[in-house]
């Protein structure tokens, strides 16, 4: 009998060991670290084009989008992506430029005055939802892109329909103009510019930035949509990388150092990337000559963003865009070697369009995009990946 009682005890023992084996301790992901949100409005005709996402002082998120083609749409969420406030700016303030710039008490946002076509400056208090039109910059007409320089000045790309030229303006921190320059366009491109501003058809990849003492902009110049380099001190023309009309263009650029750039290209509907390009700013070249790597999966005229991500001390150049299948796709390259580290997709089944992405305070990734609920209704989608999930990309 003892033998059998021992057997019983043995069986119970095994069972208890199995139970205790399942109680393993792991680092837990909190709800704010990883989530998906779809912002449903129940409106039939809503249309959203997300432009920018930033993290606010309370660890929430502020998203800037275009809606109703060119209206400014802002919404703030808490750290778990739950909406706190939504705001659509009334006309005449339309055509928001696709960036939000942090300042002491919130963010700077820029848009256009529909009546005067001037640049309008807004200060946004993300916590209260208060937006204040702090300044009108009349010297810039049809604003197309803006960038804050390393010494907190503003460099702006505009369009002058009277002289048919792209205009470049440098402002001080308080929007006092330092210089401006015109870059003449030989073709009539007004329709392209107006359509871009009004949100008709695909947006064009206007952008502006600086690399050392060079300022570069992507816009109309001469006969095509080109990448133009100028002197940051006075706006004097340096050189250009011509595109072919608006059909073969640089679609994104990120400066890596002197004459070094990571870039993306749109070639007649097919995407291409070049993670480590050497470009002589003071020469005239043709974008088609760049030794880009074709990524035909990138959607025609897709918004491409190039950002630098720091992952545990490793510098990574992360491209974000969407594919022809309407998946969000991210190409991670080593900044140092220019080698491809990984390709990652988000959203395999529902359709998505890239809006913006950012590395969050907790080392994760926040992505805002446009999706179609039930395949029909344009809505904003927000993906948040925890640091642990994001780390699997590198």
């Amino acid at each position, binding site marked *: 009998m003892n033998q059998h009682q021992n057997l019983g005890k043995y069986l119970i023992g095994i069972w208890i060991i199995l139970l205790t084996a399942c109680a393993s301790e792991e680092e837990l992901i909190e709800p704010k670290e990883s989530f998906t949100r779809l912002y449903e409005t129940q409106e039939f005709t809503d249309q959203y084009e997300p432009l920018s996402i930033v993290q606010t002082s309370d660890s929430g998120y502020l998203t800037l989008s275009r809606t109703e083609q060119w209206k400014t749409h802002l919404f703030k969420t808490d750290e778990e992506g739950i909406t706190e406030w939504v705001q659509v700016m009334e006309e005449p303030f339309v055509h928001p430029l696709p960036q939000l710039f942090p300042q002491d008490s919130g963010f700077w946002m820029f848009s256009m005055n529909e009546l005067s076509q001037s640049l309008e400056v807004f200060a946004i208090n993300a916590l209260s939802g208060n937006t204040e039109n702090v300044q009108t910059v009349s010297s810039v007409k049809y604003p197309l892109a803006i960038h804050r320089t390393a010494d907190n000045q503003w460099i702006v790309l505009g369009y002058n329909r009277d002289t048919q030229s792209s205009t470049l303006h440098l402002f001080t921190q308080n929007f006092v103009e330092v210089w401006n320059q015109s870059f003449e366009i030989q073709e009539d491109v007004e329709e392209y510019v107006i359509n871009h501003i009004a949100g008709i058809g695909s947006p064009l990849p206007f952008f502006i930035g600086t690399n050392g003492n060079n300022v570069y902009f992507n816009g109309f110049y001469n006969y095509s949509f080109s990448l133009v380099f100028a002197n940051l001190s006075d706006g004097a023309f340096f050189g250009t990388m011509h595109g072919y009309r608006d059909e073969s263009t640089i679609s994104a650029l990120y400066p890596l150092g002197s004459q070094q750039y990571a870039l993306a290209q749109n070639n007649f509907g097919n995407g291409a990337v070049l993670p480590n390009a050497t470009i002589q700013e003071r020469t005239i070249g043709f974008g088609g000559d760049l030794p880009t790597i074709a990524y035909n999966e990138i959607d025609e005229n897709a918004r491409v963003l190039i950002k630098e991500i720091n992952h545990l001390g490793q510098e990574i150049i992360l491209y974000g865009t969407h594919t022809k299948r309407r998946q969000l796709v991210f190409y991670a390259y080593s900044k140092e070697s220019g080698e491809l580290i990984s390709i990652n997709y988000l959203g395999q089944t529902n359709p998505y369009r890239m809006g913006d992405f950012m590395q969050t305070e907790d080392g994760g990734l926040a992505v805002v995009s446009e999706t179609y609920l039930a395949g029909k209704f344009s809505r904003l989608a927000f993906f948040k*990946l925890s640091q642990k999930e994001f780390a699997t990309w590198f």
Partner: protein
Amino acid sequence: MSCLLFVIRNVSPFDFYYIYLINHVCGINNAIFSGKSETMPKLYLLLFILIGISIEGNAQKSKRRPTGFTSSQWYVGITSGISKLQPKVLDHHTEIDGWASEDLESKAYAPNDQPMGYQLGLVTHFSPIRFLQISINPSYARQRWGYRTQYSWENAEEPVYAFEMEYQHQYTLHYLQLPLTAKYVFLPRRWKPFVQVGIQYQRTMDATKTLISSGTDHTSGTAIALAQETQSIKATPLFNKHQLAAKAGGGIYYHFTGCMVGIEANYYYGLGNIVDDQQRYAATRDFQGLGNVLDDLRLVGQEVSFQLVFPMKYLTKSFSPVVL
């Protein structure tokens, strides 16, 4: 449970018989089971009668009470059964944040939408004494459950031009289960009714999700039914790998000479959330449709199973099994 306590405390069946007699004759069962007896007198009466009969039967044989080798038995066999489980929501979660209304999405876990599952396994019973059985029943089990979500959009200018979608989310989970149960056997003879309680460890081996989407499009002014679509996708990471459940129920065995067959019915009560809260969003990012983010769920329901077991201890002289 009280029956088990008697066994554990080594109260002899005869003592129990006297308690039965005292209860039966004097009607003072409150003295022993105060507090519970008022609500459960019928149950206890039934219990006592069953035990009384069984003890009476055995009392006749008490002179040749088995000892040593013949005092215990061990059975090995197979089990198979079906289950019907109902998800109970512990906490709501959704990926949809409504700008227009507060509660846009609600998941409906209708009992009619919960299909049958089944389990198949091996079983071993160990009877250290004639009234007690300890059983381990390693099984493969398939549990199925699901929910529906519905959405509708209306054109503010023309409300009749609406669009409706319904998603049916069905989950099938495959487990390896290891239940440990203790049975109290009332009649250790040919017919052996028993009650049991147990705890079950289960390991999630695989999970799949099937999404059936259907809808009606009124956007043209007339209702057009959309073709029903079905998609299946792997959902294993969505669920906790290690889960626990409690079981309680009863059944009956019939002892043939060389084998024993049984049927039992149990109430199944999931101990805790089956959804992995670490993967709730990450594992559903690639799912089609809406309403994919799972609530925290506990499964409760019923199981019925059959078993065929064989005694393992035989008397070498007659080659007949030890019958307790």
